[in-house]
């Protein structure tokens, strides 16, 4: 390149390279312009969504919204307190069921699954990752709702857990594989048993990556609505039993958004803002806990 530019003065190019023709220069510039345009077009909806969410949501969030249950149609006020708590319960159930299983499967894939059997599990998790969430909902309906005979928080939790497992398994595997083999060998060399090495050395070294993967899976299912439609089902009142229909923030947003009432539309925006804040908050809290808490040395 520097030869053609010849701005150093010292080197005289042996061959004269003609400049790009006008057509080629114009095409080059044009394609750069097109690429910039695509970036603008892709980012525009993102900013529009966040701007609307904040603009519409902030005005509707108040103490009543965060502490009261929904009011009947036509009455102003009321809130989504039961849905916020319901979402937390469902997500807690999903995490309790899904996270250990996912991490276990990840450990299997990286430490024991370097063979044909592991390849099968790996492929199956990728396939599971692509299964539409609504189909997972049907399965949870068949597994839990049909047996219990009613919609429940447990069924919603099971559906979300099924969605979390493959994501966590694959990210955990990738993170564990990044841990150098030498570290494991050092532990073996000190006479540490294999299970102890895996948990206290390998997993701990990769802890921050594993936790990031878990939080990604969590964030992904936290906003899910489709699998909850016929598992958790939704509820307009407080419910503290895990075997009863339970409200969820995402379900409530859906119900309110497709309703014809302005008051409910307003609350749907507020609910969406709260949902996003909760997801981001949960992820940030775990990240902070990882950095300053018990796993800090990891």
């Amino acid at each position, binding site marked *: 390149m520097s030869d053609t530019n010849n701005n150093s003065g010292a080197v005289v190019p042996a061959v004269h390279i003609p400049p790009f023709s006008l057509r080629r*220069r114009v*095409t*080059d510039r044009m*394609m*750069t312009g097109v*690429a910039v*345009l695509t970036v603008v077009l*892709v*980012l525009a*909806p*993102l900013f*529009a*969504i966040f701007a*609307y*969410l904040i603009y*519409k949501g902030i005005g509707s969030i108040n103490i009543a919204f965060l502490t009261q249950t929904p009011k009947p149609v036509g009455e102003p006020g009321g809130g989504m307190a039961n849905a916020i708590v319901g979402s937390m319960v469902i997500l807690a159930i999903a995490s309790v069921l899904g996270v250990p*299983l996912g991490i*276990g499967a990840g450990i*299997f894939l990286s*430490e024991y699954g370097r063979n044909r059997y592991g390849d099968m*599990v*790996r492929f*199956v998790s990728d*396939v599971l990752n*692509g*299964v*539409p969430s*609504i*189909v997972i*909902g049907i*399965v949870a309906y*068949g*597994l839990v709702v049909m047996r219990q005979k009613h919609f429940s928080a447990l069924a919603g939790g099971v559906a979300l857990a099924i969605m979390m*497992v493959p994501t966590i398994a694959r990210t955990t595997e990738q993170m564990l594989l*990044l841990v150098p*083999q030498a570290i494991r*060998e050092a532990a*073996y060399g000190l*006479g540490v*048993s*294999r*299970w*102890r090495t*895996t948990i206290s050395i390998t997993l701990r070294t990769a802890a921050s990556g594993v936790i990031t993967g878990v939080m990604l899976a969590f964030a*992904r299912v936290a*906003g*899910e*609505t*489709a699998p909850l*439609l*016929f598992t958790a089902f939704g509820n307009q009142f407080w419910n503290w039993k895990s075997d009863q229909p339970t409200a969820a923030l*995402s379900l409530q*947003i*859906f119900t309110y*958004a*497709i309703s014809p009432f302005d008051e409910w539309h307003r609350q749907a925006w507020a609910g*969406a803002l709260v*949902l*996003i804040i909760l*997801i981001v908050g949960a992820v940030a809290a775990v990240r902070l806990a990882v950095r300053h808490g018990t796993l800090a040395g990891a």
Partner: protein
Amino acid sequence: MSNQALPRPRFNAPEPERDSRAALKIETRTTPLLLGKVSEGPDAVFGWAMRLCGLAVVVLLGLIVYELVIGSQLSWHAFGWKFFGHSDWNPVDDQYGALPFIYGTIVSSLLSLVIAVPLAVGVAVFITEMCPIALRGALSFTTELLAAIPSVVYGLWAIFVLVPLLRVYVQPFLATTLGWTGLFSGPPYGIGMLAAGVILAIMIIPIISSITREVLTVVPQHQREAVLALGATRWEMIRMGVLRNARAGIVGAIILGLGRALGETMAVTMVIGNRPDISKSLFAPGYTMASVLANEFSEATGDLYLSALIEIGLALFFVTIVVNALARLMVWSVTRGQPARSVA
């Protein structure tokens, strides 16, 4: 970057690992340390527990297939293959045909691909090939942020912002300029196939663009340099040196986006209009397989009705699995094949 510094997870175990384990076994056998005998038990238990977790993933898939197949038996015996070729969906008379939903799913997904693919590939090319390095991280983070927004929030935004926008500006414009094609005729409600396609496009752009980016970064640097050395402009370098090499991977990324679009439920349900009609115009309301499940599953009365819905779920499941498997294979053929070739 990390591709070169660290070994990517592979299907076949790297050789040194096996060797070291083998060596280790001999060592522990020849020198029974204090822990030697004791660790035998817990080690075995832990190993089997982890294998069980791996097995659970396979069992989960089995459970999904089992539930769907058992649940759809009734409908399968009643309608057979006709179920997928029939367009009469009438719960009152217990007549079920899934054709309108299949049509709606295919049309909305294809429409979203038409919109999303040029944009997503453009963004990926810009980020990997043109963008100043300082901007690169921020840009890819922002596009990835699009993937973190819940589907129901997209739907909410689509109902109150996108649909009015389409109704007032886009649809009248399309009707006057391209109305003769028949694709853009009829009353501009805003809600309908077009709105579903646009919101789907916005939702699948991040996945297509992030995987395309991954594929583009794997294209060896010397390919770019070689094309540049032959006197190509930057665009010619991208076209001949980068895009052509990454073709299979980009197609894989697109198919992966298609898989996501096929199964996407909430946002589509909120804007597609939910009417089981087959109509040529993209302005007309439609219905998809996922949204009929979302709307009717919890209210399905009667066993045959429920069974017909589960059969739609089964069909959706198989289609997405085939599409995803195809996509994974194509992405692998680029991201896994390339480094191996440069090593050899």
